[in-house]
Every structure is written in C-alpha cells, then in structure tokens.
C-alpha cells in the first residue's frame, strides 16, 4: 500500500560542546551502514547529552531553545564561544546533513541543512534553517523521534496509562493520521460552505419551505380567480358577439331601415377613423412648444438671436486654451512662464468644451428650421385643433343618428329592443369583469403576500423563495453528507485501531514469550498505553523487554526502515533476559545503535555479536585525563584524539575497557 521509506544515520560529529569532541561514522561502504553499532561511553562522558543533541538535530527543536538551555551545552572546561553538532543522514538514498551551530554569546542555536553529498556547501553566514526534505519531515518531528531515539523513560511511558505513547507510535507508523486529515478536510469543506450561506438549520429550512408553499398556493388561487373571470368574460363576449349579429340580422331583415342603417353605420365608422387620425396629429404638434403659443415661438427666436449676438458658442473652444498652455510661446509672441500657464488653464474653464458647442449649434439650427414665423406656427396649430373639434362633432352626430335609427327600429320591434337591452347589459358586465381583472396586473410590491394580487409580483416572490429554499436544501444535504462521511471515517479509524492493536498485542506477546520464556508477563491490551495482564507494572527489566518486543513488532510490521537508537539497552535487565534481548536486537531494525557502559557487556555483547553474525561496530569514547586509559589506547591503531576526548574504534579495546570511577553526568 505504501512506498518503503528508508532513513539511515551515517554518523555525527560534535565540537565545542559539553560532551568530548569526536566524529563517528556508521558507514560500512558507500551503500550500507553497519546493522549494529555499540558506543561505549562511561557515565559522565556525555551519553545523555549526545542523545539530546541527536533528538534536537533530527527534529529542529533547538530553534526554540531558551538562552539557559543553550548554555547548558557549553563545555565546562575551556569553554568556547561557539560549538557545533552535525548529523549525517541518508533518506531514501539521498544524503542530508543537518548542522546545529551553537552561539553561546547570543544563547542561540542556528540550523543549516544540506542535501547531497557535499557538506562543505554550508554557508555559515547564511542561516538556512532546519529544512530537511518535506516528505522526510514526517519522520523527523519531535514526537516521532522519541520512538527511535529510545531510552528507559520512553519504555516506562509505553506502559504508563498517563501517557499515550503506544497509541501515538502505532498511529505514526500505520499512518492512521490520514484518517484525521481526511476528516478535517471534510469538516473544512463544510465550514467553507456554511460561511457562504444565509441559513443552515432545520428551522431556516422550515421557514423557507413554508414561504414557498404559501406563495405557490397564493399564485394558484390568484390564477384560478383570474381564469374564472377571463372565462366569464369570454362567454359574455361570445354572447355579445352573437347578440350583435342577431341585432344586425334583425335590422337587415327590415327592408325599410336596412339601407339607412348601413349608411349611418359607415358614416360613424369613417368619423371614428378621422378622429383617431387627427388625435395623432394633435399630439405630435403639441410636443413643439412654439405651436402652443406665439409668445413661446417669439421667445425661442429671441434666444437664438441672443446667442448669435453673443457669438455663442465661440469658435474657439476650451481645448484650444488647454493646448496653448502647453506651448513654449504665447500667441502674442511672449514666452509662457509657469504662472502664465496656470492662469491660461484656469481661464480655459470659462469657455465651452467641444461637446457643448456641438449641442448649442444643433439647437440654433433646429430653431431656424422649425420656427420661421412664430405666428404662422401658432395659427397652423389652432387650425388643426379646430379641425379636430369638428371631427369629434361629426362622430357624435353620426353616433346619434345611428342611435336614433336603432331606437326607431326598436320601438316597433320588442324583440330587437330586448336584444339591445341585453347587449347593453353585457357591455356593462364585461366592463365590470375587466375592471376586476385589473387587480391581477397590479405591480405594487409593498403589500404583504396575503394582500398582494399582482400575479407577476407573486411569481417573482415565489422564484426568489424557491432559490432561497434550494440554497438551504443544498446546504442541509451537504451537512448530512459531511456528518455521514465523518462518522464513516471515524468508524473506519476505530475498526483499524482495534484490529491493529489486537494484531500488535499478539505479535508482541509472542516475542515476549521468546524473550522471557519463564516469565508470564504479557500485554493484555494495547490502547493509549500498553496494559499488562494482571499487573500494573513490571520491573525495569520487564518493562524494557516488553517495550523492545512492542517496538520490534511495530518496526517489522510496516514498510518503513528506521534506525533504532537506544540508551543503555541492557542495563536494567537480568542477565538471562539480556541474552534473549541481545538475540532479538538485529530483528528490531536495519540499523541499531546503542550507547552502553562497561557493566552492560556481560551476557549481552557476545550474544548480540553472534545474532548479527559479527556485522557489528565497536566504539569507545572517553574523556582525556585518565593516564592508564590513554596508555592503553596507545596500543591500538584505530584511535582518534581530539582536544578533550579519545575515540577508539576497536572490538578488543571495547571488551577490555573498564573505568572504575564512573561519575554521574
């Protein structure tokens, strides 16, 4: 499922710090490191310091160290102003060097990171910080580092329910954190959605839904009412049409009135047509004010004359003066100074712009074209009005004559009179219906829904309400989906944990039974911490053995190869368990580095050497100053001397090294 990730520690060097200066390498050749390395350092040599430096170098945590903490790493004897600790790594085949530069005067630690094979590319003048490759940072973070730079304290914490180290280790190694990442991404998606919507809850949904339902009902009701009226009108109009036809037919059947009726009817139609045409002409003529009154016409002519007299608009526009202000010399030949230019620009605003000039010229031209003689215009308008009035009179007269003819005909024919009455009644009824229909065309948007009759207004409100409902419906759908997804992801995480924890418990117990066949200590449950069967805690040796078994199960269970660095791997373990632990160590990881003291060698080193088929490195690091040890070191060839320390890379020296007075660090 995942790619294999490999991290190896190629070595480290320290200078000017509390532990002796030394440099150490774990490289067997260009491609491989020793699977097991033992570094023997007597108490007081700087084992704990080296482990702390390693953790700090791998995590970048020293960037935040306080002044006092930084100073605690300064040499006690012959202190210098600066110190450094470098760690050399190989991550998925690429070399990385992380350098910690201690400035004891400022009380600060600066990091420098290089990738590639050339550590000389450091630039001390440039603080490039703690910058390992991005994908490597997953391993190189303070919490996870504690799982592979391992000490007795962490071993105890693995079994302490106050701590959640066991759970954390599993979560890191099995990448269970991605469940949380997915869960958080889903939550963020919901947060983004909710921030752009106006209502999200059930209450908001209900309100919007009710509004839509009400408006739908209201619209339906109004349309039905309108349809009923329209249908009524349609029926009445059909009836009216039929009655009118009946009336016509009835009149036509009377030979005496038929011809006269046709004549009067045609006369009325012509009169109506004439009135309509003249109405249009009167409206058009009324739009020119000089037609309405001779006085207005004369005033407009006076306006044009005044404009002509004042030479408005001038042919010289504002733009001319603005351009002049840019010239070096004035029209009069005088050079233009700054203050002259300012004055010209200011005065230019008193002149018209070219747009204004065009408008004024257009007005003048129109006055000339339209008002040649104001009195003539006014007279023409008056003549038109008179013609219009006469046409109206003719229409009235024609209508009257037709009515008279009809009345005459009706007076001698009761059926015709009834038809006419019914026609008049229908006309009134239709007019009444049309008046009632007007309410549905109302455009008033101020009234509440229940008092609004305008169908288009209700339709618009319904459209808006539907949009608002759709918005909240979508929001609620997304909310339900995010809730569902979150629950699924949490359930998947719980199921994964349950099975992984069970698997690890069984595997670790198998290892414990091999490590301590006569001891019945077993893990009963893997949770936040490891729980032991029937007991709260074991002895230090038991705790360490359980921790090794647990870590071995973890490291053998995933596609990740990480070094395992341990402080005093056998110190507190009984001799018989030491051998078992030693035999187990090569299976823990591809690279095992341990800090030991001479008292740990018994029952540990030889079985370990056998278990890794002799593929093991032995280092002894001690401070200068003990003449007997220095004398002993001289007998060996692979010895490095520094200002305050000696490093011997030799198995025989390692095995025979014994420092009587091991002081506490």
């Amino acid at each position, binding site marked *: *499922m*995942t*790619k294999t990730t490999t991290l190896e520690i190629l070595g480290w060097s320290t200078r000017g710090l509390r532990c002796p200066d030394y440099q150490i390498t774990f490289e067997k050749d260009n491609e491989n490191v020793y699977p097991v390395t033992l570094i023997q350092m007597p108490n007081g040599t700087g084992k704990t310091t080296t482990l702390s430096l390693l953790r700090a170098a791998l995590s970048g945590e020293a960037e935040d160290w306080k002044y006092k903490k930084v100073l605690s790493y300064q040499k006690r004897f012959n202190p210098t102003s600066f110190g450094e600790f470098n760690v050399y790594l190989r991550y998925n085949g690429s070399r990385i060097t992380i350098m910690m530069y201690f400035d004891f005067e400022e009380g600060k630690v600066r990091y420098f990171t290089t990738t590639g094979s050339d550590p000389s590319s450091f630039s001390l003048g440039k603080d490039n910080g703690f910058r390992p490759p991005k*994908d490597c940072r997953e391993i190189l973070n303070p919490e996870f580092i504690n799982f592979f730079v391992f000490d007795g304290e962490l071993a105890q914490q693995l079994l302490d329910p106050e701590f959640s180290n066991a759970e954390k280790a599993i979560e890191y190694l*099995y*990448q*269970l954190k*991605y*469940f949380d*990442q*997915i869960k*958080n*991404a*889903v939550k963020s*998606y919901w947060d983004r959605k909710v921030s752009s919507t106006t209502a999200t809850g*059930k209450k908001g*949904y*209900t309100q919007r*839904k009710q509004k839509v339902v009400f408006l739908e009902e209201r619209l339906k009701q109004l349309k039905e009412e309108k349809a009923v009226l329209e249908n009524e009108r349609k029926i009445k109009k059909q009836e009216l049409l039929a009655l009118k036809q009946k009336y016509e037919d009835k009149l036509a059947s009377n030979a005496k009135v038929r011809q006269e009726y046709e004549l009067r009817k045609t006369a009325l139609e012509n009169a109506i047509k004439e009135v309509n045409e003249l109405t249009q002409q009167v409206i058009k003529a009324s739009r020119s004010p000089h037609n309405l009154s001779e006085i207005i016409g004369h005033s407009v002519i006076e306006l044009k004359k005044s404009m002509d007299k004042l030479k408005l608009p001038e042919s010289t526009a504002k733009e001319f003066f603005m351009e002049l202000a840019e010239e070096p010399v004035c029209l009069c030949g005088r050079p233009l100074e700054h203050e002259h230019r300012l004055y010209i620009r200011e005065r230019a605003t008193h002149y018209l712009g070219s747009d204004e000039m065009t408008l004024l010229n257009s007005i003048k031209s129109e006055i000339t074209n339209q008002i040649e003689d104001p009195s003539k215009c006014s007279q023409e308008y008056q003549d038109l009005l008179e013609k219009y009035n006469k046409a109206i009179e003719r229409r009235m007269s024609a209508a009257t004559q037709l009515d008279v003819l009809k009345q005459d005909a009706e007076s001698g024919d009761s059926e015709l009179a009834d038809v006419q009455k019914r026609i008049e009644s229908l006309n009134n009824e239709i007019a009444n219906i049309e008046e009632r229909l007007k309410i549905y065309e109302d455009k008033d948007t101020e009234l509440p829904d229940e008092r609004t009759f305008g169908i288009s207004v209700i339709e618009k409100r319904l459209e808006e309400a539907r949009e608002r409902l759709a918005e909240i*419906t979508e929001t*609620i*759908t*997304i909310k*339900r*989906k995010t809730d*569902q*997804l979150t*629950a*699924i*992801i949490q*359930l*998947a*995480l719980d*199921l*994964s944990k349950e*099975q*992984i924890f069970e*698997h690890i418990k069984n595997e670790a117990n198998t290892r414990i039974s091999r490590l301590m066949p006569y001891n019945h200590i077993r893990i009963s449950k893997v949770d936040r911490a490891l729980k032991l069967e029937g007991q709260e805690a074991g002895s230090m040796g038991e705790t360490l053995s359980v921790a090794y078994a647990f870590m071995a199960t973890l490291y053998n*269970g*995933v*596609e990740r190869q990480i070094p395992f660095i341990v402080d005093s791997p056998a110190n507190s373990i009984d001799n018989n368990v030491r051998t078992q632990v030693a035999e187990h160590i090569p299976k823990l990881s591809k690279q095992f580095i341990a800090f030991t003291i001479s008292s740990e060698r018994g029952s540990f080193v030889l079985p370990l050497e056998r278990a890794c088929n002799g593929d093991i490195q032995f280092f002894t690091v001690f401070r200068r100053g003990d003449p007997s040890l220095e004398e002993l070191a001289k007998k060996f060839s692979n010895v490095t001397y520094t200002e305050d320390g000696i490093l011997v890379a030799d198995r025989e020296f390692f095995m025979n090294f014994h420092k009587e007075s091991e002081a506490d660090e």
Partner: protein
Amino acid sequence: MLKIIEDSIKNAVIESGQDESLANALIAWFRELANQNESIDNLEAVERRIALVMDKTRVDININD
C-alpha cells in the same frame, strides 16, 4: 497489515448503508496520501477528492420537523 485499513474503510462504509463505490473513493484517497503522491495541503486536489466522496455519499434529504 495495511490491508486492515482498507478492509476497515470498506466495513465502515457498508455498515453505514453506503455504496461500495464510496469505500473505493475513500481508499484511493487514503492510498494517495499515505504514498505521499498527494498532500492534504493541496486544496485543489482535496476539493476534487471531496467532490468525489460527496457524490458517492447518499443521504435522505426528506426534511421534516
């Protein structure tokens, strides 16, 4: 061992009454994150993944008081 995670996702999806295609979408996302082919900081990729899993998630949208 990591098959446990995939099986757990499948079981969680089935237990929740969802379609198996949702499990496949979640497993694919998990894989890409675990393989570091995708980052959760890549908003564009995350949006795409969420759109997919949202599309595969079925919910009852009959909302009643």
